[in-house]
């Protein structure tokens, strides 16, 4: 799984709860024919969809396994190349180039079967060798170990022409989810020099690419079903403001991930659709548990009670978001909605602080950055709110590079953000299990570790769900995260655009079902 630092992939996933759907789609401007919602009108074939996506000219990459900092690059790549699996609604992992998969009983050996009729754009069939080559190439990248966690290159092999066998170092029930968004497949033997010219297997073929802009034409031979659009033109935008202007002026049909500010600007325009994709971005506050002033679980509990979540969502996210309950992975079908929602309780917060003998005479520094919209604002509002519980917090805005170098994983109190929000297990494995590589709060909890190991080693779905609930309860009670809310992903589209995805994160790039009304 790729997670670039500041323009991280917003790894996609499922829309979680029906409740969230209702909460977010209630204002009637939600795309009615969204992929997740099912269409009422019959799709029309033809037309060119002009899509704007964010990207920086200096960070452009054509490599499907490269460091994709640009959303525009990722969009282009994901339309040309296919991954083994893709994000879905429910379940959160759906087949793509891998038509099916099966695990061994110990959940270590996974066999992926390649979709029948899958062909590269040059006509040659996709073989297991191509997939093995691509996975090994991905594993060899600098972040390969985190993109294919627990999978060594030597443990990726072909079995016949249509089966790929992956052996994980440990039992991992979430492996199909982990190969969702980065496992782009290119023909075997593609050299680094020719990577930009490598044919893909995806729903669209490359017509031309220039300086981050591209035109893609329909792949009539795609194995994945009907593609309606004749072509997609991807335009790179450095700023969301310019992208919004382009949409409002009718120069593009879809402004991908343009954000809440643009959505508010466009509210008065009847000819513009706002597509809200819930559970897109988590911006939790990290309270260090290993040592320091927040090591006492009571202090963390107090701060969680001191924050006014509704106001945070309203002000920081302009209302384009939902309240959260200190559990990460809100879009997971296994997300536990039965755990009571934590609400503001200043009296209890003060009492807990007293019990913990928390030093309220001191001022604590909360480190933040301006990496993504709303992050610094969330820190400022949080500081204002906890002051009412007697905790003095001073917000320190850090330059991005400094933050990731000096504060991340080390600080006592800081903001972070994550774009993969459809998997409880993803966060547990990445940020909460004692020995996880990016344990942001330095959290070590034996009970949690045990629950996690059991959950990912359990094949039975209902048993697993029960174990995951246990895991989420522990996280809710004592982890180092204060997750006040979840930001919606927001796309703006012209009135003729239909069939857009409503998945959070990079689920938004699945434009193969989009169509244009005449």
């Amino acid at each position, binding site marked *: 799984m790729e997670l670039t630092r500041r323009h991280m992939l917003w790894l996609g996933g499922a829309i979680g709860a029906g409740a969230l759907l209702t909460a977010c789609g209630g204002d009637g401007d939600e795309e009615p024919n969204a992929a997740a919602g099912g269409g009422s009108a019959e799709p029309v074939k033809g037309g060119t969809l002009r899509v704007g996506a964010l990207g920086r000219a*200096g960070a452009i990459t054509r490599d499907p396994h490269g460091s994709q*900092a640009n959303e525009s690059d990722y969009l282009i790549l994901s339309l040309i190349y296919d991954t083994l699996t893709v994000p879905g609604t429910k379940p959160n992992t759906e087949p793509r180039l891998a038509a099916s998969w099966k695990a061994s009983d110990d959940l270590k050996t996974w066999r992926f079967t390649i979709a029948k009729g899958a062909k590269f754009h040059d006509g040659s069939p996709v073989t297991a060798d191509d997939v093995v080559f691509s996975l090994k190439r991905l594993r060899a990248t600098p972040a390969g170990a985190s993109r294919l966690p627990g999978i060594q290159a030597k443990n990726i092999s072909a079995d016949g022409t249509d089966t790929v066998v992956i052996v994980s170092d440990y039992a991992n029930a979430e492996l199909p989810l982990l190969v969702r968004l980065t496992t782009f497949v290119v023909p075997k033997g593609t050299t680094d020099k020719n990577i930009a010219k490598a044919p893909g297997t995806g729903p669209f073929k490359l017509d031309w690419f220039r300086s981050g802009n591209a035109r893609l034409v329909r792949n009539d031979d795609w194995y994945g079903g009907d593609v309606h659009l004749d072509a997609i033109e991807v335009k790179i935008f450095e700023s969301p403001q*310019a992208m919004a202007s382009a949409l409002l002026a009718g*120069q593009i049909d879809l402004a991908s991930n343009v954000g809440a500010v643009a959505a508010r600007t466009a509210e008065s325009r009847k000819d513009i659709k706002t597509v809200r994709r819930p559970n897109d971005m988590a911006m939790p506050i990290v309270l260090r548990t290993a040592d320091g002033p927040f090591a006492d679980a009571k202090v963390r509990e107090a701060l969680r009670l001191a924050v006014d979540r509704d106001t945070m969502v309203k002000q920081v996210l302009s209302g384009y978001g939902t309240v959260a309950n200190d559990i990460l992975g809100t879009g997971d079908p296994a997300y536990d909605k039965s755990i009571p929602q934590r609400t503001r309780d200043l009296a209890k917060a003060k009492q807990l602080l007293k019990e913990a003998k928390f030093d309220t005479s001191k001022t604590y520094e909360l480190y933040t950055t301006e990496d993504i919209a709303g992050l610094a604002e969330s820190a400022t509002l949080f500081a204002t709110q906890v002051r009412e519980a007697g905790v003095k917090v001073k917000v320190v805005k850090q330059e991005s590079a400094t933050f990731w170098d000096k504060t991340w994983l080390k600080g006592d109190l800081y903001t972070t953000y994550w774009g993969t929000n459809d998997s409880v297990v993803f966060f547990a494995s990445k940020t909460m299990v004692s020995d996880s590589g990016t344990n942001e709060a330095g959290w070590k909890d034996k009970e949690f570790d045990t629950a996690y190991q059991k959950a990912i080693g359990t094949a039975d779905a209902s048993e697993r769900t029960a174990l995951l609930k246990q895991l989420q309860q522990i996280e809710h009670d004592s982890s180092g995260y204060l997750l006040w809310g979840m930001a919606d992903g927001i796309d703006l589209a012209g009135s003729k655009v239909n069939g857009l995805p409503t998945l959070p994160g990079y689920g938004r790039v699945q434009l193969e079902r989009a169509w244009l009304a005449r």
Partner: protein
Amino acid sequence: MAGPLTADTAAPAGPSPHGEKARRSRAPLALLAARVGLVVLKRATLLAVLLALVFVTVELLPGDAADATSERGESAADTEARRRLLGLDRPVLERFWDWMSGLPTGDLGVSARGEKVSDLLSSAFPNTLLLGGLALLLTAVISLALGCWAALRPGGRVDRAVSGTATAVLALPEFVVAVALVLLLSLWTGWLPAVTLTDADGTPADWTMLILPVLALTVPQAGWNVRIVRAALADEARAPHVETAVLDGLPPHRVLTHHVLPGALPTITAGLATSTGMLLGGAVVVETIFNHPGIGSVLASAVTDRDSPVIAGVTALSGAVITGVLLLADLVRDMTAGGRR
């Protein structure tokens, strides 16, 4: 900038310049070339110092290119390996020297993401030059026209209106002008495209996309240059030969074009030339607002990435252009002034 390119001796004040033609065309031409060479050398040195400063400044910023372009899942060891690969573990002056030694061959180095800097700039720089060039041209036309119009009747209604407006707009930052133009001429009226979108060849898909960014760059610069033109003309109007022309009963516009303007030209050219730097600087801002695919976005992203070779590449090219334009302006000044000495 540097002193006159031609020494006074190079333009002998003979009673009849035509008679001197044979002598002037050889020796002074060589002298002129030598002087141009000297000035170019001086400015190239200045540019080299500036480029060294770029490297040092980027070094002083927190974090480095290896950090800035790393991925969240990347281990410290992997980042360290990339740091070595990018040569960032070497002293800054050594890296600067490496980069400089490639410059004469046109090699601008490799970006932190492994792209050739010359590739990054190959379509971006011409786009910025086109934008800046058009804006400079438009600035020249507008400022000359308005400046002359105002100077025809000093203190008159036109003069006051033009001078007042010029002062007002020269204080407007480019981004204010740009945002206002987008709202007015695109989003409200729908007359012009709001942003620049490019074709397969990397150039704007439609020429109308250039109008708004060029205007946004031109307006503040035109304000500045109208003031200069107006002032230069007023100065020149007090010269004795102009007074003579007026007393001879020549019509005002003839006095303006044949007697005042030639004398004011050196100042006007110098004013326009200094605008080049402002135009290139303003282009960075304007390009972001209009999504114009120029060096602005490349530069902004390079600074984020702590990408010294890219920043230095942009600086070197812009520096070369500005130097070239200033040199041209100096030549114009010397040629016009030389004939009158």
